[in-house]
């Protein structure tokens, strides 16, 4: 009996590991706003994967006989100043957006966690120095600091990603440190220490998992900011360069034709707004799902 219980518990292996994820998704689907955000983000990922199938035109193909066409049957979102199909460019733009979000998140998450948990656990001078450094980064609005980094590195999509990553780890580090401080003196950490676990082991095995929920929430909310900062950099000509179909850059070039051809500006903007809103709503929903402490405050 015990044997079967054990096997049913462990047999699905990977699937058992996925159970919390399913539970969270089920929780999220119950709230209309979180469900909406999941739909948008799911659509974003699908569009990025299936871009070649869904796009009706080559996003880079110019057709100078067909410039600035309003939305019509052949081009459902119209064409831009070089006759390129705006719908297809938006679809391919999802790949750029997802690349930016993905790269920033996988760099910022681990760095922020490492700095924050180490500072919180080790304490003392080490903590003071690390937190001073994060304070310096936090004394700028993220866009301004990204602007400065990109200006120095030279405008390009890669440099924009580096700049955004450089400016978005400090809030994560702050959060991870605050969480660490609340666990640091708890009994289970003391027990691990008495068993002879090294500080690195304690941080990796006992502290990081406890920080993960709030860090995940913060990272999700951060994705919304990343999208807006990247689009802002693209708009100022400091991010993705033409002819890349980056949404912010598309708005920047469309700006010159805006008064007569609203569709050049309207659709990319709606795309940015939807995706950014979706990540904000998802972060909000995750806070309810993962963080019972926040339940009565939220």
């Amino acid at each position: 009996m015990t044997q079967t219980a054990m096997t049913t518990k462990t047999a699905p292996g990977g699937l058992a590991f996925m159970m919390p994820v399913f539970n969270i998704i089920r929780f999220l689907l119950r709230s209309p706003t979180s469900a909406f955000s999941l739909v948008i983000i799911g659509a974003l990922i699908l569009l990025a994967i299936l871009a070649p199938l869904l796009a009706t035109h080559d996003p880079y193909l110019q057709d100078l006989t067909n410039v600035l066409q309003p939305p019509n049957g052949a081009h459902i979102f119209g064409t831009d100043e070089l006759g390129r199909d705006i719908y297809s460019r938006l679809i391919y733009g999802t790949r750029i957006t997802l690349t930016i979000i993905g790269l920033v998140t996988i760099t910022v998450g681990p760095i922020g966690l490492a700095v924050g948990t180490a500072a919180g656990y080790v304490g003392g001078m080490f903590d003071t120095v690390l937190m001073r450094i994060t304070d310096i980064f936090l004394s700028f609005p993220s866009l301004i600091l990204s602007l400065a980094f990109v200006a120095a590195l030279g405008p390009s999509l890669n440099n924009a990603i580096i700049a955004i990553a450089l400016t978005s780890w400090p809030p994560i580090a702050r959060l991870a440190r605050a969480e660490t401080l609340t666990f640091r003196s708890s009994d289970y950490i003391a027990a691990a220490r008495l068993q002879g676990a090294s500080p690195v082991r304690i941080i990796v095995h006992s502290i990081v998992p406890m920080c993960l929920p709030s860090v995940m929430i913060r990272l999700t909310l951060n994705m919304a900011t990343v999208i807006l900062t990247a689009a802002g950099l693209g708009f100022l000509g400091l991010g993705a360069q033409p002819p890349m179909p980056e949404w912010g850059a598309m708005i920047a070039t469309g700006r010159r034709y805006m008064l007569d051809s609203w569709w050049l500006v309207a659709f990319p903007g709606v795309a940015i707004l939807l995706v950014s809103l979706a990540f904000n709503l998802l972060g909000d929903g995750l806070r309810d799902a993962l963080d019972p402490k926040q339940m009565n405050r939220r």
Partner: protein
Amino acid sequence: MTISAGGNAGAQASSAMHHRALKVRSFGGHLVSILVTLFGLLVLTFVIGRMMPADPVRAIVGEDATPDTYRMMYERLGLDRPIWEQFFRYLGDVLTGNFGVAIRTGQPVINDILHVMPATIEMATFAIVIGACLGIPLGVLAAVNKDKWVDHVVRVFSLMGHSMPIFWTGMIGLLVFYAALGWVGGSGRMSGFYIGMIRGPTGFLLIDSLIAGEWDIFYSALNHLILPASLLGYSSSAYITRMTRSFMLDQLNQEYITTARVKGLSQRDTIWKHAFINIRVQLVTIVALSYGGLLEGAVLIETVFAWPGFGQYLTNNLLIGDMNAVMTCVLIVGLIFIGLNVLSDVLYRVFDPRTR
């Protein structure tokens, strides 16, 4: 008896002194941490400005300068000196208020910034008033109606403000309210017709035109200000709404609110005269911090509205690669941010009785 009373009084006095000493020490510690942050800020701007691939000499002498000219400028900027010596030179320059000359205007950078700052402050101030007037009541409304439909609507409305790319909303706003409806003025601070007619003492157009009694100009300036300031205000109201709601919920869950309700106080008085009174101080600090955050939106919205302010100055210099001017702007933003942080801290200490 007397002895014990005296001892008691002595203990009280010493405890008060101890308290004061603690306060001084905490203020001292605070000051040190501010100074360390300021120093770090300078290190950061120095590192970004000097050690990155962009070539400051090229930016000044131009692409087709002779090697001799290049060499001369290289030495004049002190780039042949060791890096720590360059840093101390930079530190000295900043402390004496010498921020160098902007390539584009040929004027000292700091004069340029002082010249453009009023335009940005005027917009940001207008925006924060709109943001607070929108965000605070909405936050209270959401907290009082927690988990009802009003709460959800407020949440989505304020998240929208937080999620919109402000440069895009600015353009759509211009398309709708200027081009289509004609309700507001277009880009710039006033109609082209009036430019140069006001050279006021403050640089704030609304105030200067009032002093001069030029009602036409005042109206034109207001007309041009209202759209970008409202959009900026809406985007900043998201954070204010969220914090107001969270502060209010903290209060509404407390027992004195139940007491107030039990004793028959009206809902309006309970909310505004009891709960709201207690979050005023926190709100002031939040609004002060949001004011700094507006600088970020200002960079983008000034570009869209051709607003001759700090944000446009920053982006113009970015595009021509004048790192000196750019880093000075960044430094100023950092200083404003730290200043606002200190200010909100001071406000908190002054107004919150618990910190006394």
